[in-house]
């Protein structure tokens, strides 16, 4: 019994190790090199960064589908700001501050609409997804704005410290902050409590609305940081630059065992989930799977992995919920 639980607890790490072993055997020369590992991590750094914030909304049992287009908006804002201030460092600082502000405001808006107006998070963020995209399109006149200067700007996405690029360090830092908040602070405990049973949390004196709003703010802020990084990586501002990232983030979280019903999941596992997706992409390239087949294969692997991992867990949770509904009030 005890043994079983432990396997479940570390299943993601086991899969990760299995992945690495298989790829090392298949491609001994090209896979396990610092360069390749750095590449894999770089490719998932933005997803990992976003996941560190979006996980808060998932833990509540909510969701944030707007992160992709919010990234686009903050990427465009940053680049436009830099352009306005003549490609100087001053413009960069203002651009980043603007992007962060947008993230906070967007998060507040989501949180307030979801909690105070009782609208489903799915609907609200689905709607704002196109709102943010629309704003970006208006701001940029639907054009791609190229931005190669200042050097500090390009360093955010492409700069190297040692063998790794800067976004990898940034992702690690944000993930660590997220881990600290979730595991060490009272707020983190409250997030799990509200996600696990909102009524019980309220009865325990937790201001569940405040907790919810803050969670959406975290999600917004990491999306805007992600936008800045992505703008720097691509050296341009484009409205649609982040589209699709919301799917990657949710995929990473779910593969990492974060329950979409709320109350359950760990940031470290979600990051592992992101790494697994990155490894899968990388592995397919190394082994030489044609790019036309990659999407199909990736989707199938994800479905199978998630189904195996969650089959037991959702079953038990469903039982809990049914028990609650079937409970007879005498």
């Amino acid at each position, binding site marked *: 019994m005890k043994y079983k639980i432990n396997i479940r607890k570390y299943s993601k790490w086991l899969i990760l190790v299995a992945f690495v072993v298989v790829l090392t055997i298949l491609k001994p020369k090209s896979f396990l090199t610092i360069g390749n590992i750095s590449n894999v991590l770089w490719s998932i750094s933005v997803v990992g960064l976003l996941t560190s914030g979006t996980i808060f909304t998932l833990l509540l049992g909510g969701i944030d589908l707007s992160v992709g287009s919010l990234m686009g908006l903050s990427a465009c804002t940053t680049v436009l700001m830099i352009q306005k201030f003549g490609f100087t460092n001053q413009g960069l600082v203002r651009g980043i501050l603007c992007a962060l502000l947008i993230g906070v405001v967007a998060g507040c808006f989501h949180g307030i609409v979801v909690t105070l107006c009782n609208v489903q998070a799915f609907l609200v963020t689905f709607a704002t997804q196109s709102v943010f995209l629309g704003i970006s399109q208006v701001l940029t006149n639907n054009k791609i704005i190229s931005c190669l200067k200042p050097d500090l700007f390009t360093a955010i996405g492409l700069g190297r410290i040692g063998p790794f690029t800067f976004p990898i360090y940034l992702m690690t830092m944000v993930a660590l902050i997220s881990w600290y908040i979730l595991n060490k*602070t009272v707020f983190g405990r409250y997030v799990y409590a509200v996600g*696990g049973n909102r*009524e*019980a949390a309220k009865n325990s004196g937790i201001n569940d609305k405040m907790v919810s709003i803050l969670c959406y703010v975290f999600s917004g802020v990491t999306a805007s940081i992600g936008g800045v990084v992505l703008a720097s990586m691509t050296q341009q501002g484009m409205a649609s630059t982040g589209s699709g990232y919301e799917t990657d983030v949710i995929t990473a979280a779910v593969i990492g065992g974060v329950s979409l019903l709320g109350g359950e999941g760990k940031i470290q596992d979600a990051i592992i989930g992101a790494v697994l997706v990155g490894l899968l992409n990388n592995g397919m390239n190394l082994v030489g799977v044609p790019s036309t087949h990659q999407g199909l294969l990736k989707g199938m692997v994800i479905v199978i992995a998630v189904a195996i991992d969650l089959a037991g867990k959702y079953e038990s949770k469903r039982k809990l919920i049914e028990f609650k509904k079937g409970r007879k009030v*005498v």
Partner: protein
Amino acid sequence: MNIMLEAKDINKSFSGVKVLKDVHIEIAKGEVHALMGENGAGKSTLIKILTGAYTKDSGSIFWKGKEVEISSLRDCQNLGMACIYQELSVIPVLTVAQNIYLGREPKIGKTGFIDYKKMNRMTQELIDNYEFPLKPTDMAGDLGIGLRQLIEILKGLSCDAELLIMDEPTASLSGKEAEILFRTIETLRDKGVSILYISHRLEEVYRLSDRLTILRDGVNEAVLIKAEIKPQKVIRFMIGKEVDESNGSVKTLTKNTNETALKVENLTSRGKFNDISFEVKKGEILGFGGLIGAGRTELVRCLYGADKYTSGTIYLYGEKHVPGSTKKSIKKGFGFVPEDRRGEGFIPLLSVNKNIAVTNYDLISKKLMAISSKEELAMCLSSIEKIDIRPPDPDKQVGLLSGGNQQKVVIGKWLMRELKVLIVDEPTAGIDVGAKDEIYGLLQALARSGVVIILVSSDLQELLRLSDRILVMRKGKIVKEFSAGTVTQADILEAASGLMEERL
């Protein structure tokens, strides 16, 4: 008499405990037959056997004189019985007619398209036949709970049901809705439909039933015909004859003369309860008795700050207390154990450790905002020891504990604080006897240490055993106070059913 359904010598036990002993019930054609009994008398078990949800250990069931085996709800429907549930299965976005013929819609020829005209006509015929205040094209979601219940009844009738089983049908109805239901039941009876009516509300049974079967502790206590159904008599049969301190059917109350701890003046929440005033002394256990829906839960939730009230004042040790939020109440020394343990009491996915700590983070020291996990664990271990949570594993998910231990966790988190008032709503519902005694012990010890305990309980035995004083609520008002002298279960039940008012 033309007997529709007869159950003979039904026996049933759960894990060795006999819950039904040679129970017998018969329902004649065109009669309203009521089934009454205290909580745990075996009413639900009997109904579940009759509808095929449980299998009986022994005994036989006869339908129109022929012995039958009922092993599923389908069997029961095929015979011509319909069960109207408390929790409705009506689909709100469909019309009355669509709900009634769901899954067996009349088709146009063999095309597979639904013949809505015919469906509405068939529904209208049914409605006319039984004089229901409904229209076939009404959207179910626009109707009140009472009328939705009528849809359920029609659904049963449309399958030619000759016997309707109604389990506490008025539990969630307003007075007006209940009145419509009663009239419907009377019409149905006149049309020859039999009804098995389960309720613990005396006035309804008194009004509706032609015969009444009373169960007590899983045994047939009496079968009364209409002329014999007298409230006092029914109560006596339900509770039993011997009035004895040891079995908790009677208690001598003594006055508590401590200082007043909590004082409530004219508390009102529109539509829920009205003009409630009472005082509680330090260290007193104040019990609230009454039927389900009397407004007790709503009242204590307002006291705690979980819900808002319309008007009134609350004083805590002479100081005015406005429970704006649960957080504020907790700071002032309130604790709350809600009625719906699983839905509102604890967080099933989190460990015992975190469930105990969840209300007490203000007492745990923090460094750089990080909680001292050492203190958190120490708190959990001390509460595990204090209230004997089994297994004594701080990392165990609370959802995996037994009901009794879950409740101990819910209560336990309050014991870690300096409490002034602890509100407990149905603290032992669905909990085994051993854990019950432990929880009683905990509450009594708390009261001895000076904490005010406000207890809401529908279990009369529990109410009598724990309370120093008992207030009985009915329809949102306090109708009776038992503060000194002897009080019996029958007294409380009479007050809760409104018999006291009638006699005055």
